[in-house]
Structure formats: C-alpha cells, structure tokens
C-alpha cells in the first residue's frame, strides 16, 4: 500500500493539493482566499494531467538536430496550456467581480456580506 503510494507520488501530491484547495474554498470567508483555494485546486488537476504524460528519461518533444526518442507525451501539456488559459480568464473575471462587490458593499468577507443581504 505505502509502496504503491510512493511509486505514484505525483498523483498523491495532486490529490493532496486538491484537498487543500477544497478546504480553503469551503472554510475561508474572505472571497479572495476562497478564490486562491480554487486556484490551488485548478493547479492540482493541471499537475495531475501533465504528470500523465511523463516518460522516464524522456526528452522534450521538439524535432530538430539531435532529437532522439524517447520523448515525453506532448498532448497533455498542450491540453493543459489551454486549461491554464481558461484558468487565467476565470481568475480575471473573479477578481473583477470581487472588486465590484467591494465597491458596492464595502467588504469581501462572505459572512458580513450574508448579513447585509
């Protein structure tokens, strides 16, 4: 059991990160902290998918002089590049929403906001 976990340390790490992010998102009342929690979760999923493509001793899959197999799998990386773009736009939108909330209500603590409603 322990050995199996150790062999898949990269996956274990991403699951742990996921849980940390989820914890932060649920327990923190500051909206920015909640959002950082979400970002940690995003990163963990990205790390998980990139780790799928790793080949032991592989090179970057760039064709050219001196390129020789084995290469690591480039597909997950390109997928995650797209994923990161999505995450950036989510972050931008969320931060601008937080700014507007702060302008309107003067606070970004979730519990204080709930009282105002």
């Amino acid at each position, binding site marked *: 059991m322990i050995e199996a976990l150790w062999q898949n340390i990269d996956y274990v790490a991403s699951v742990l990160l996921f849980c940390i992010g989820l914890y932060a998102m649920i327990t923190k009342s500051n909206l920015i902290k909640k959002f950082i929690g979400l970002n940690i979760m*995003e990163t963990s*999923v990205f790390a998980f998918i990139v780790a799928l493509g790793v080949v032991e001793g592989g090179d970057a899959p760039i064709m050219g002089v001196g390129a020789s197999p084995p290469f690591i799998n480039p597909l997950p990386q390109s997928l995650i590049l797209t*994923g990161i773009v*999505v995450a950036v736009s*989510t972050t931008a939108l*969320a931060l601008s*929403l937080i700014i507007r*909330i702060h302008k*309107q209500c003067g606070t970004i603590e979730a519990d204080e906001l709930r009282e105002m*409603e």
Partner: protein
Amino acid sequence: MVVLAPLVGAVLTPIVARRDRRVAPWWALGVMSVTSVAAVALMVRVAQEGPFSYYMSGWVPPIGIEFRFDEVSAFIGVVCLVGWLAVLYSFRYIEWLRGLEKPRIPYYYTLLLLNLAGIIGISITGDLFNLFVFLEIVSLSGYALVAVSGERIADMAAFKYLLIGAVSSLLVLLGIGLVYALTGSLNMADVSARLADAPARPLAVAIGAFTVGFMVKAAIFPLHIWLPDAHAIAPSPVSAVLSGLVVKVGIIGMLRIYQIVYGSGAVDMNGLNQVLMWLGAISIVMGAFFAVFQDDIKMMLAYSTISNIGYIVMGLGLASSFGVIGASIHVFNHALIKATLFFGAGALIFRTGKRTLSELAGVGRSMPLTAAAMSIGAISIVGIPPTAGFLCKWYIALGAVQAEQPFFAFALVFGALFIFIYYIRMVNAFYFRPPVDPEILAVKEAPASMLVPILVLAALCLIMGVLGRLPLTFIEPAVTRLLSTAGGG
C-alpha cells in the same frame, strides 16, 4: 460553420459597433440568423442520412478533432431559436437596464453570442477535451452575463455561480484526464472502443467526476444552491438562455458520457442510474416545494427549473426506453416553456418595475397578451394535455412504470401537483386578485420586440403539444441505439 459563425461574430461585435453602438443588436441578430440557417441545414441532413462527422482541417480521428452531428445535436435547433429570440428581446430590455452603461452594450451581445456558440459547440463536439473548452466558454460568459444586470446582489450571485461552476468544470477536466490516462485517446468514439479493457475502478472514479461535474451544471439537488440567485438576478433574456439552455449543457454532457460508457460496456451503470433516479425525484419535489414559497416571480421560475431538471434526470436514470425518450423531449420542451415564462416575466418587470407576485396582481388586465402567453407556459409546464409539457411527463411516467418503479411515477405526479399549485398562484395573481397598486392597470402592453418572442414561444408550446410526434421521430432512433448498446439495460 455553425459554431464558427457566432464565435467569430461575437468577437467582431465591439469592433462593428465602435462607430455606432446601435448597430450591435442588428449585427447579433444577423449572426444568429446565419447560424440558424446553418443549423437547420445540418438537422435536415441528420434527419435524412443519420449521424455524420466533420473533421477539423482534414485530420482523421483519433488524431484530429471531430465534430459529430447526431440526434443529440438536434438540440442546436432549439438553441438557435431561443438564442435568436433572446437577441431580439434584448433590443429594448438591455437599453432599459440601469446597471449597464450604454457604451458597453455591444459587449453584452458579445457575451450572449459567445454563450450560444459554446452551447452549440458542446452539442456537436465529438472530442472530450473540446467538450471541456466549450463548457468553459459557456460557463465564463454565463458568469459575466449574470453580473450584467447591476442589481445589488448580482455580483455576489455571479461570484457564487463562478466558484461552484469552476469546481464543476475542474471535476469534468479531472474526469477527462482520467479517461485519457486509461485509454490514451480523447475522441469519444475511440474512447468508447478502447474502454472495454480498462480497469473498472479508476473508470468508476472518472465517471463519478463527470457525473458530479455535470450535475452541478445541471443544478441537481443537492448541487443546486447557485441556481436560484443567479437565474433570478440575471437580466430576463439571459435568464431565459441560462435556464432554458445552459443547464441543459449538463444533461447533454451526461448523455455523451452515457453514450461512451454504454458503447463499451466496461462498467455496470445500474448503481449510477439508481442515484440519478433518486436525486431526480428529490429535485422535483424540493424545487417545487421551494417554488411554492417564493413571491418573487423570477425566483419562482428559477426553482421551477430545478424541479424540471429533476424530471429530465429521473427520466435518464430510469434507463427504460420511454423514460429516456421523455427526458430527451423534455430537454427541448422545457427550453421552449421556460424561455416563454422568463421572457414574459421580463416583460412584466420591464413595464411595471415590480417583480413580486403580490405587487403584480391584476396585471392580466393591462397586459393581456403577455399574461395569456405566460398562462399557456404555466399550463404547459404543469403538463395539462394539449400542451408541450404533457407529452414528456407522460413519457417519463410511462418509463417509470416500464422500469417497474411505480414509486417514481408517483413522485412525478406529486411534483406536478406542487408545480400546479404555484403556477395557479401566478395565474390567479394575474387575473383574479384585485390590483394592490392602481398604477398597474395603466401600464401598456410590452413593446413589439419583446412581445414577438413571447408569443412565438407560447405558440410553440401549444404546437409542440399537438405535433408531439415530430421530435419523437427524431429522438427515438437515438434512444434505441443508446439503449441497445447497453445490452438490454
């Protein structure tokens, strides 16, 4: 073409409208018209020849990206119709909104077009990662659209929607990652073929991630908490799109996953079906229960969406042919009905400035056409025979009996009774209660650009009830194919 038109159109909107922002709505309407024509052409081809595929830039799958048109994709027909009407409806409504400064109106149309493009993309994509990308297009533009209205708690509602929506998208991405790890492919058909010899347990985790992710998007109890605020606060045309179309994205996603997994027969889906059935039943009753206590008309409609999505999911979970057929038709019909109701509610708010049922009492006398259309919508959603809602609920009930689960047929009827109660309250308020505010009798009927969408959709609610066989002929082969691959499931 059908995806590219709104996508490119959306990006170009602010540029086109730079000189004169009054061009923006017409431009958006034009873009949607082109899209609709393309969509109709595609649907005709599906009806005649059956499913077909288009490969991006000529690469053949599994390497290339595939767009696949089949019966599920026929959803784009409704998307185009409701989308077109929503753009038309926005002409006056958006101008009137306080929270939106006039120079920024073109951006509103950009978001709306992007949102519709994403929904169309999801309905026709044949590639898992593409599914995720389109899902994010829909979600991100959706969050922004909720915040547009400028109501006091709009930003808070949008932020709540964003947090929960982002987590659900992540879960979908995690599921895609797991499936890729198991099969080494992202093309749906290819994945389905390769899943047969994948280990069952990680696959179950992947399916779980997909299910939870899509269920958040579809707002199934207990993952519905974001929906009422977001849908009630958004501007009315946006509410119609969100409620009629965007929540269906979760259902379409589920259907796609079912297609993949049934096709491979790798995992026994019965456990999941049980869960879906129960959650569907709970959603129906809980959604209807909360709706009864709402005084805000849009809040009530939002809760009613939850209970209607419950019907759809229950139909899927029953996994009997009638149940799935009923669920698929309800995806179409609920889009029409709920768009009618939200457009109508928007028109009432536009003219009277009031949004609670008690303040709106007596409005049926001053806005007869809108109130009549909304009453048709209400009758239709309860499922009284000559209207669209009856057919789907009848089929889902038949499905419950067919699957030897009479309890769920009972839940369905029980839910319909609840729904009946709160829509009766609405109709009662429109016509029979004396007006609280005498001004309500003086308001004018909604302007033509708002009245036309409302009346067209209300008419469709009736027509779809009478011509119920039309969508059936379309959906039946798809359902039969889905269930036959499940090995008699």
